[in-house]
């Protein structure tokens, strides 16, 4: 089992075998997480700091539980309320924390590239928990694990990613990961929410949702930010739901056993019909949350092994 990375900054840096290694380990953690005793000592003695410069409940909780189940000392820092407000730069904040010798730093930041910048300045392993519109690697990995468990494989599937691709780090990481694993990727959404020259990423682009969903195995919905609905990118919430909201009628164009995914939190009635989201025969949204913990345990475990191996021994 090899995973030769110091940080997990994005899917871009990972190879096919890195991804498989990670998912295989995550599978074992997924099983363990269903046992009454979920505890492991993989991160015993290590310090994990969660630095969230952007609001997050789900991802932060997931990383916290993952760290605690592995025996790490976990600390959450709500960076919005802290020194950044006092004018301290990102790098100074990083240097300050670095001096406290954390072993794992989990970082979310509203600016693309900010986590890369921070990783250059610290000695510990850094996990990107989402940077701007750039990447959200653990989300893509948990989506991949969910798909692999539901479909029995993670290659040669037809997968539609629908909605606000332009502003989505989840979409970017998923496009990279699913592409690396040799799947057919379709992007569905209004052209105002598509990044420029996205067709060069080896994907097919559709602005008609029914055509885009034709025969696909996986339907991955994205969250539409409220601030995009005011006429700047799309005319209105109701027109968006009419054309791009996932309901039973549109889903009928997908393969009969297609699964429905959503990274959460959902806007019911905007990008997805509420009943559909709760349909246990189609929706794997709860599995995604479950796999999130497993994938984050696997990622932190692998990075911690490399980190500890690189430390001078004190014995």
């Amino acid at each position, binding site marked *: 089992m090899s995973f030769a990375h110091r940080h997990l900054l994005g899917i871009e840096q990972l190879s096919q075998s890195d991804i498989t290694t990670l998912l295989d380990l995550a599978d074992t953690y997924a099983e363990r997480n269903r046992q009454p005793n979920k505890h492991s000592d993989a991160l015993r003695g290590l310090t994990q700091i969660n630095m969230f410069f952007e609001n997050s409940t789900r991802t932060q909780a997931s990383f916290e539980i993952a760290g605690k189940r592995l025996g790490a000392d976990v600390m959450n820092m709500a960076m919005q309320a802290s020194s950044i407000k006092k004018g301290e730069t990102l790098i100074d904040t990083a240097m300050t924390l670095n001096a406290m010798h954390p072993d794992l730093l989990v970082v979310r930041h509203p600016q693309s590239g900010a986590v890369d910048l921070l990783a250059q300045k610290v000695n510990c392993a850094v996990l990107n928990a989402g940077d701007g519109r750039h990447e959200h690697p653990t989300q893509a990995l948990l989506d991949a694990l969910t798909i692999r468990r539901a479909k029995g494989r993670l290659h040669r599937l037809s997968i539609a990613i629908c909605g606000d691709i332009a502003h989505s780090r989840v979409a970017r990481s998923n496009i990279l990961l699913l592409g690396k694993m040799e799947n057919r990727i379709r992007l569905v959404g209004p052209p105002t929410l598509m990044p420029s020259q996205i067709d060069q*990423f080896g994907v097919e682009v559709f602005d008609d949702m029914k055509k885009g969903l034709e025969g696909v195995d996986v339907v991955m919905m994205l969250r539409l930010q409220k601030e995009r609905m005011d006429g700047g990118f799309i005319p209105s919430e109701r027109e968006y739901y009419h054309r791009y909201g996932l309901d039973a009628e549109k889903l009928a164009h997908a393969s009969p056993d297609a699964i429905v995914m959503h990274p959460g939190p959902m806007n019911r009635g905007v990008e997805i019909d509420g009943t559909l989201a709760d349909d246990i025969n189609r929706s794997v949204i709860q599995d995604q949350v479950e796999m999130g913990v497993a994938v984050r345990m696997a990622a932190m475990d692998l990075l911690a092994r490399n980190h500890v191996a690189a430390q001078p021994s004190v014995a």
Partner: protein
Amino acid sequence: MTQLFTNLRLLDPEAGTLAPGAILVRDGVIAEVFDSAPEGQASDSQVVDCGGHTLAPGIVDIGVKVCEPGERHKESYRSAGLAAAAGGVTTMVTRPDTDPAIDSPETLEFVTRRANEAAPVNVVPMAALTKGRAGREMTEIGFLMDAGAAAFTDCDRVVTDTKVFSRALTYARSLGALVIAHPQDPGLSKGAAVTSGKFASLRGLPAVSPMAERMGLDRDIALIEMTGARYHADQITTARALPALERAKRNGLDITAGVGIHHLTLNALDVADYRTFFKVKPPLRDEDDRLAVAEAVASGLIDIICSMHTPQDEESKRLPFEEAASGAVGLETLLPAAMRLVHAEVMDLPTLWRALSLNPAKRLGLSGGRIAVGAPADLVLFNPDAPFVLDRATLRSKSRNTPFDGMRMQGKVMATYVAGSCVYEAN
């Protein structure tokens, strides 16, 4: 005092020649030009042996930002002047985008006084076109010209109100003033950090379509046609803008265009992993654009190459890419970077020198840029082939935000002369 510069290759951009020669300088002015070393010169002349290197008119760099007043810790007239001398730039044409902006005769006089005290090279100031560069009211163009303003520009801010801009152009025309603008559609380019395309999408950075430049230029050309003003586009960086420029010139409008050295030598991919020293304004373009623009300089469609020297301190660059300040220093790297175009055989040395020296001097009505009797002895002696690896720690600018750090370059300034006096000599 007379000086005889001999044992050199003389680069004459006006004649388009590069050949052995010699020149005699009397009291800071070129007094005679020879094809070969003259025999039996007057014994009182000091002989300057140029060691077989290339002697050319000094570079005239339009658009240098010196951060006085306001941010002297980033660049002062002293530090910029030393950097210019080391880079073979004998005339810095300075930008008014300081804090406060240079938009009144009083601030202009302050700048001129500081420049004359501190800088070893010529400093020719520009002034803002509108007060506070706010795009609402024109500055005192007449008074500012009397105080020495060589041109009027709001720098990277576009005067969005076309009524304001057309009046300023009309008024400037009546005084024969040159207006320099930044052709860019302000709506499309708002908030952009990079040029749109595959790379921008991969990095998740806010991007501007290269079309925004053409839209800005189209608008400006219509206004020049309407007002008859003298106009210079500060930076043309995209292939799409070139046909419009070509047409405007063919139609006899008084228009010229420039380009910054970074857009001629780097492309959008150089940003790589969010390297903020490569963040410039407008953002770096695709390789196709870079090649088209370099060709346009070779053909003379783009008239002027400048350094777009923009000092930024470490604090304003060591930030996430979107938040980081734009701009790169260029005074000391302009010559070796521009030599890449010669070494890549995009253009010959006399053609390059027209864009670096003769054309900017002509456009601003300055006497430099020529090897001719009566021209000032503003000269640069350089070795066009000498290789080196740039170490940014050696730069003389107070700010060292160069994208060329650690890169191999060719072209080394051996000495720089302003009005015949040596202001820099390589050791």
